[in-house]
């Protein structure tokens, strides 16, 4: 963003001010995530930088909280991680299937009441989680699915489908329907056409929607707090209790792992988005 040489001084000042603001905002966005890293290696039990850490004394750093996270006695993280992954994987599969089907229907130009139905399908993303939590809890309690994995998976499918619907409809917006017609005219049945023609083309959108659904489920705490019993605890629930009650650095070790996981997911999602845009011929 080099300025042309003829720029007046006041615009020059304004320009540097603008750059300074942007730098501050980027710092504000990203810096909080980096506090977690060093503190998770703290040798002491407090969530502050000890004097030793400020002097970069190697004695002040240790892996004890990571050890605690994995091998600690009576520690809930193992069970929580297992539950989180199981719930998130099933919720993702459910969201992908229901969401992709719905997106295919919504993208058809014959679809009646498109706007209204879309608004209903997206609503779980917009309605405050606490309200979704209360409503889903009433339902699950009535059908006897409260405090079960099935109940939580169903709840997370509700919350995850809007993302799949949005990403897949976006992918389908540039979709050339003549290819499916060509397949049909060559004698392929609708299922085959979908599996061999449509799905490979919309796959990037499906996967990135699935990633959103996975992250939503993996990070969801409000609804799980209503639904979960002791056996259904998940990582976010454990973090929530930890942050409210005993603030132990183990949480930071877990948080560091979660940041690494989200970085991986971000990279995957970005690569997929670019691939999808390339496939659809959108040049940026």
């Amino acid at each position, binding site marked *: 963003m080099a300025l042309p040489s003829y720029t007046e001084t006041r615009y020059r000042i304004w320009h540097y001010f603008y750059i300074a603001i942007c730098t501050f905002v980027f710092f504000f966005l990203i810096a909080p995530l980096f506090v977690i890293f060093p503190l998770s290696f703290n040798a002491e039990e407090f969530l502050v930088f000890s004097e030793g850490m400020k002097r970069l004394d190697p004695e002040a750093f240790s892996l004890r909280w990571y050890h605690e996270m994995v091998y600690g006695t009576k520690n809930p993280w193992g069970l929580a991680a297992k539950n989180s992954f199981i719930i998130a994987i099933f919720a993702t599969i459910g969201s992908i299937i229901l969401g992709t*089907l719905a997106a295919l229907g919504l993208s058809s130009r014959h679809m009646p009441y498109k706007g209204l139905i879309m608004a209903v399908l997206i609503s779980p993303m*917009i309605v405050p989680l606490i309200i979704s939590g209360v409503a889903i809890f009433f339902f699950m309690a009535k059908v006897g699915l409260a405090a079960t994995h099935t109940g939580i998976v169903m709840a997370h499918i*509700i919350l995850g489908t809007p993302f799949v619907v949005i990403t897949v409809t976006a992918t389908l917006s540039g979709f050339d329907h003549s290819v499916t017609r060509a397949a049909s005219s060559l004698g392929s049945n609708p299922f085959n056409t979908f599996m061999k023609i449509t799905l490979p083309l919309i796959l990037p959108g499906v996967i990135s929607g699935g990633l959103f659904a996975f992250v939503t489920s993996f990070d969801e705490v409000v609804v799980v707090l209503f639904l979960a019993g002791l056996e259904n605890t998940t990582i976010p629930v454990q973090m929530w209790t930890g942050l409210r009650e005993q603030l132990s650095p183990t949480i930071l070790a877990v948080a560091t792992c979660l940041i690494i996981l989200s970085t991986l997911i971000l990279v995957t999602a970005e690569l997929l988005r670019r691939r999808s845009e390339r496939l659809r011929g959108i040049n940026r």
Partner: protein
Amino acid sequence: MSSETKQILTTDGIPLEVSLKKAEKKNKIKAFLLVAPLLLFLFITYVFPIGEMFTRSVDDKMITNMLPKTFKAMEKWDGKELPPEDVFAGFYSDYKVLIENQTQGKLGQRLNKEKNGFNSITKKLMRQIKRNKIDESQSIKEQIMKVHKRWRDVEYWQAIKRTAPPYTMAKYLKGVDMYFAADGSIAQVDEDRRIHRILWLRTLEIALFVTIFCFLMGYPIAHLLATLPMKYSNLLMICVLLPFWTSLLVRTASWMILLQQQGVVNDFFVMIGLVADDSRPEMMYNKVGTYVAMTQILLPFMVLPLYSVMKTISPSLMRAGKSLGGTPFVAFWKVYFPLTIPGIGAGCLLVFILAIGYYITPALVGGASGTLISNQIAYHMKTTLDWSFASAMGLMLLSGVLVIYWIYNKLVGVDNIKLG
């Protein structure tokens, strides 16, 4: 030549128009069948339960079912003087059934909420009935009135009459610090006990200011991202997307560490001499913490829609504005800014909708003065177990959100929500 157009027929001999309509209908059904599974699933597990929250919030059938004969007899009572004999008799026989089923305690508690003092007089009446002190061949009205002087007070009978309808709006009134007074009119709660109105206003205030902060911080960086060359902007975009993909609890945890009294931000303030070491300001467990954390967490939802709009604005427009004699400020204000308004609308509405229902972050960093209406709903769901009140408050919040959602849908369109 006849002017009449000949009807075009398909090879089957059916008029083309009919055949086309049939095909259209078939396609419509096909498309709808694809959406149907998700729609059905959502209706059963989500939309109907939200509707059920409504019935729960207005439900007041408990007493209606407990005192059927009383309310039947009360239909003829004008409610001005003490009720006639048959109301007392009805109440007596209803109450005897309750004692046999051992559910009379619930009635006392519920009536006590309607008017203070019911608990003791219903218990007293129960003891009299259990000792068979009430002679059913005599006037029951006279005997009940002798049990306690409050049974002779018409206000208590009026209170019972008020509980007769199976539905009540009382929970909604309670949500805005109002209640039904003894004469059935709507009254305000005492000024020092109006906690809910404070919460509603605070929720609005925090959502509004978080939206403004997000806009003020999001606009410049969205502009920078949209105008920088691709290779730099992709790198900077990670700064926006990484927090977006990171667990909400992780981000809240990092703010708790940063903002605590011995935390990094306070350390920094002490280091640059802004505050003394022994008077570190409290930045967490109050509104400051809620504002800071929520702004950072919701900022990506402002930047992404703004960015996607700004990306489509050609830089030549600004150059044209300047070449026509506008200063950079004028060119920005008259040309660029109006073009970004769709993005501003989308971002602000999205952030506002998300902020107004926030729960986790205010609960962790908000303390007592930073909690929002969602926290109150959770409190009634989990601690006081007043589910009908929680439902009422939830629906009041929901109606507000749905209005904004409707505006958002009109202005932006739900299918234009940008993710990543």
